[in-house]
């Protein structure tokens, strides 16, 4: 099962290495990690999308993360009301006619063309991972020359409903 785990960590040298090393040593499968600064100076936020076999393994993962001295807080936000986004840059071959066709495909995704050359264009899309995936598969027939994704970053919505209706695990 896929889960979204968020960790706040002290921004010290080696912290990323420490955490990825632990995950590798303990054989956790990581789909993506995104890291960046947070609202507090000296504190970074990490978002992991992990694929764990069962709840026991998931509990181990959060405990092992928590055990790290640089880690301040760990939460599994998969079953909460969250906003989760990732960004992808997709370079596809295309000129003339094809361009307007591609434009037609990406518009409903609110994606945009951010670079154009003689025989290619680069599309930027942001959104939930499933939306990004959907656009990528629609663009595949046009020949994807290059693709890069940031990995998911996420946090809790301002308001948490009593009952969470949005199930996130299928999205990732």
């Amino acid at each position, binding site marked *: 099962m896929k889960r979204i785990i968020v960790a706040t960590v002290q921004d010290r040298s080696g912290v990323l290495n420490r955490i990825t090393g632990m995950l590798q040593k303990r054989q956790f499968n990581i789909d993506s990690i995104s890291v960046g600064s947070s609202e507090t100076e000296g504190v970074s936020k990490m978002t992991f999308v992990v694929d764990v076999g069962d709840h026991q393994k998931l509990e181990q993962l959060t405990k092992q993360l928590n055990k790290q*001295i640089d880690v301040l807080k760990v939460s599994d936000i998969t079953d909460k009301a969250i906003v989760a986004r990732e960004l992808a840059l997709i370079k596809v071959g295309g000129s003339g006619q094809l361009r307007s066709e591609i434009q037609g495909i990406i518009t409903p995704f609110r994606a945009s063309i951010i670079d154009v050359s003689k025989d290619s264009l680069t599309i930027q899309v942001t959104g939930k991972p499933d939306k990004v995936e959907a656009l990528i598969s629609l663009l595949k027939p046009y020949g994807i020359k290059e693709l890069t994704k940031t990995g998911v970053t996420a946090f809790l919505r301002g308001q948490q409903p009593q009952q969470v209706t949005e199930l996130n695990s299928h999205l990732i």
Partner: protein
Amino acid sequence: MKVEAKHETESTEQMRTGADLFIQTLVDAEVDTLFGYPGGAVLPIYDALYRSNPPFDHVLSRHEQGSIHAAEGYARVTGKAGVVLATSGPGATNLITGITDAMMDSIPLVIFTGQVASGVIGTDAFQESDVMGITTPITKYNYQVKQVSDLPRIVNEAFHIATTGRPGPVVVDIPKNVSAQLTGTEFSKDFNLPGYQPNKKPNPLQIVKLADALSRAKKPLLLAGAGVVFAKATEELKKFAEKYQLPVTNTLLGLGSFPGTHPLHLGMAGMHGTYTANTALYECDLLINIGARFDDRLTGNLEHFAPHAKVAHIDIDPAEIGKNVATEIPVVADAKEALQALLQSVVELPDHEVWKETLKLNKAEFPLWYEKPEQKLSPQWLIKQVYEQSKGDAIITTDVGQHQMWAAQFYTFDKPNRWVTSGGLGTMGFGFPAAIGAQLGAPDDLVVSIVGDGGFQMTLQELSILKERNLPVKIIIVNNEALGMVRQWQESFYEERYSESLLTMNPDFVKLAESYGIRGLRIDQEEDVIPMLQDIFSYNGPVVVDCRVEQKTCVYPMIAPGKGIHEMIGVKK
């Protein structure tokens, strides 16, 4: 040891470098013994040591691995952090085995490594090694000192992290320019560790749950690990076990946390544990694990481990709970605090006389056993004599192999902090240097190092320290002219194909000892053993005894690899 300076010049008196500050922080941390070895990147520190003549002792080993195992032995008997200093590059990499060993067995160490100057880090400079990268997975935490003003805080934090919560090794990497740099005097030592707050107090709800489980248990069992020793909770454990008449078994590292001669003690559990202890683990309906981590050498095949039991686990490290064995009652706490809370709960225990009686019968019916060979000494009998002649009161350090298991089986510990062995990593070469540290930490105690002929040869260069300081460590080499444990597995599981496990060429250990100026003895007759032990135990100096034991003796009983705890072999003669 320090050789006095001939000329104390005035300018050196006033000099204050990062290295002087470093020495001062060690003094402030009340370090009394520093296990080290010099080299280029720590020259400023060694110079400061020479100039400042601090009130602690520097022990010069002959190999950095010797330093770190000695520090582990010291930590294990004193409960304080063992402190190590080595140079960059090869000095640091020679420590890796010991750091990993300490990590696996939760031994508090603070390890200082020199590093090349900050300006050349990352350029593959002479004797540069990526100490941070290499030691990240094998330390509780590690630091590289970026500026000299951070040094007092970092050293302070390093000792705090190493010795609190679940203890472990902490590495502090000090670039040469930091230790050489001139510096001021006023620095903050305040901690800055918001992400490190080990929880000592148990959750009262879990204690209630545990008390409730106890009140229903017909076949309760306590499993005590080294966590009980670290938490200094042996008195509480004894009170708790006695109050409810609960049988107790130990992990290898937990030996000594409960009196081995106590009627409630079932002996050690695990791969070479007693039949009674392992059967109790198999049959119990409530297993209370206190400070052990359910290592695979204890549990055997997990499928068959405590299959009928409700499992409660008291551990200071939450990540250990539920890691290997599903746990119904998790108690994240210091063992002492948890036991105190349990002692305060009122529990009506159902009658478990039948259970107690079964265990008693098993104990009588299936004791540890051995056979005496015709020609050579029996290794188990030898250990028993060591136990008796030292009145069970020695500090025993062991290496790794058959002799280690025999020592665990036949030397009975009634007190904590007297059993020093490498459990998790199973590090050959550990036993003898660990004895040096143990003797330095407990100068008035009898320290006996029980080693194999194989493992002793991995770190025997430290005999120099024994001679230099006349440390009265007694080294008993259980010499079977073999890598005995390997030989045993080849006999049992590889149809006697003794691939590279027979030591056909060993040194003359007597002459070897003598070449260091140390007494050396050889024993191969049973009748000489007791007089020899009486002799060496009353001799105030180091001795090496080469004891020629039967090669073909195997360690029994045993849970074969992959088998469950209820499938022991070699249970009876």
